[in-house]
């Protein structure tokens, strides 16, 4: 974040204000610029549902990876370079024609950050946490995710020890798509299990 290459005419007052605040905070020794860059980098690029989507897309195109992913989620996800303190013990649960998986954290808001980014607000809400266990089918229907009656719903309670990721079913009619195109189809909600693709 060098200031040497800016064209002064292209800068806006708000950018100047941010710069001034940064200079002040740095001068007082409250923060250092490298820490700012690290956070920005992390949340702009390193974390987000796209990481999870890449894991899912790889599993769809590579049966051997899919087998490793279901056997040891943490290790298989690490093959793609994703991991960290909030993704230490990942368990991947696979949706099939007969089973739909749903992830919740009944105690708090445990969530696999390295693959899904920031948890949505509703994930932390008491009604979601309670109803996902008590009446998942009704809750899912209200969230716009109708699960056919003959499909079993399995609810997985995340904790600090184990964090779950749903492997959604590959949508029909996607045989011609490559891995990148497939990843673009995978939504955050489908990896929590509140949506079907």
């Amino acid at each position, binding site marked *: *974040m060098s200031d040497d290459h800016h064209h002064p005419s292209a800068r806006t007052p*708000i*950018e100047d*204000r*941010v710069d001034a*605040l*940064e200079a*002040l*905070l740095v001068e*007082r020794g*409250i*923060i250092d610029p490298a*820490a*700012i*860059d*690290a*956070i*920005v980098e*992390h*949340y*702009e690029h*390193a*974390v*987000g*549902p*796209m990481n999870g989507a890449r894991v899912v897309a790889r599993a769809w195109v590579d049966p051997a990876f899919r087998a490793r992913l279901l056997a040891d989620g943490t290790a298989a996800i690490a093959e793609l370079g994703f991991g*960290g*303190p*909030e993704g230490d013990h990942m368990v991947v649960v696979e949706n099939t024609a007969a089973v739909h998986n749903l992830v919740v954290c009944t105690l708090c808001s445990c969530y696999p950050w390295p693959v*899904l*980014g*920031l*948890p*949505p*607000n509703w994930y*932390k809400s008491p009604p979601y946490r309670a109803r996902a266990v008590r009446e998942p089918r009704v809750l899912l229907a209200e969230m716009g995710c109708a699960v056919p009656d003959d499909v079993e719903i399995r609810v997985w309670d995340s904790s600090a020890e184990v964090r779950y990721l749903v492997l959604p079913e590959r949508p029909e009619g996607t045989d011609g798509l490559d891995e990148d195109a497939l990843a673009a189809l995978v*939504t*955050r909600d489908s990896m929590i299990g509140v949506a079907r693709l």
Partner: protein
Amino acid sequence: MSVSRVAEEGLADPSLPRDNGALVFDAPWQGRALAMAVLTVERTGRQWDDFRRHLIACIDDDPERAYWESWVVALDRFVHEVGAAS
């Protein structure tokens, strides 16, 4: 990289603009303003709510103002509050 509990709380602020769960920034200064708020809260031992109060007040002051501009005004106030106290 691991983030502290305070940082998690800030980064999970429900008012932040998102798309499919990922934060949305229209310009680099917005991401920096977010990181600065998180770090200032963390390094001064404050609570996320101490910053959030300013953010809510700044949005209330001028609801038409762009979200991230209100954020910067709130950050300015918060930094000065922290500075005055330290």
